[in-house]
């Protein structure tokens, strides 16, 4: 299937795009994580994507690269949506932060860090956002033990 949007991105970053697909108008670009920031800047500055709707991650253990960062963009000018995904390896879970481009990425990235342990380079304040200080590990990782609890105060007997 040809899509103007996917073609534009593919021809702009021919070496960084791993895959593109479209399903019933849902367009997705899979790209290398090194290219995430410049692709996002291109979307914002040249293609009119003015809204970062969501940024999250997924854990595909035991696949390698294990994580996938998922960003959803929306253009209110063109009423158009696009999903960017990039694989992130477990040994070096670092990605460039989108916060310099969209301030709204700040808390999304803190959540992805809190839940999956993905580090966002260039983030102004990368702390846990949901779990408390002293919590160890990242609970949405598939290898986080299902029954592990980390109480803040001792439980009654």
């Amino acid at each position, binding site marked *: 299937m040809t899509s103007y949007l996917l073609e534009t991105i593919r021809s702009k970053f021919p070496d960084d795009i791993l895959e593109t697909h479209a399903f019933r108008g849902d367009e997705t670009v899979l790209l290398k994580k090194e290219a995430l920031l410049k692709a996002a800047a291109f979307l914002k500055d040249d293609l009119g994507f003015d809204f970062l709707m969501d940024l999250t991650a997924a854990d595909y253990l035991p696949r390698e690269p294990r994580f996938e960062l998922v960003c959803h963009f929306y253009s209110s000018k063109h009423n158009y949506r696009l999903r960017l995904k990039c694989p992130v390896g477990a040994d070096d879970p670092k990605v460039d932060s989108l916060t310099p481009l969209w301030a709204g990425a700040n808390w999304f990235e803190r959540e992805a860090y809190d839940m999956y342990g993905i580090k966002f380079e260039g983030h102004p304040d990368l702390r846990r956002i*949901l*779990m*408390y200080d002293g919590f160890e590990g990242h*609970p949405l990782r598939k290898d*986080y033990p299902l029954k*592990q*609890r*980390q*109480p*803040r*105060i001792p*439980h*009654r007997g």
Partner: protein
Amino acid sequence: MGLETIFGHSYLTTRLDAAVNWGRKYSFFQYPFVTACCGMEYMSVFASAYDIARFGAEYPRFSPRQADVLFVVGTVNEKLAPVLKRVYDQMCEPKWVVSFGVCATSGGFYDNYATVQGIDKIIPVDIYIPGCPPRPEAILDALIKLQEKVSKESVLDRKYK
């Protein structure tokens, strides 16, 4: 109450129990510790259709220091547990705790890294209300059960040492 230290278990203190318990059970001031969806049901018990005031439990107090009954309404997670404990510790005796809905009672279906598997892991509970959320009738039933429980207590009891 002072008297019991002089008289111990005697006619005087049993009569005193009857009077004190009668007063206590028909004038519960509650502290609603509302964290989740069960709160809607809690509100409806207060509204005119179910009207919990008919049972003397008229007044939600938003200071734990003025409350007798702690209603824990909704999901409590590990992050919140110290707050719940502190609210409970701030209440003056005599005090009672009602666990409202399955989340507060057992964690409900949230068997995960974040959720306390029942508030009785944090504080003692007197009455548990099952349901997700419980119907208002179940809450009135729980209140009546709590009244029955209170009417059997003695001023000599030292529940919380």
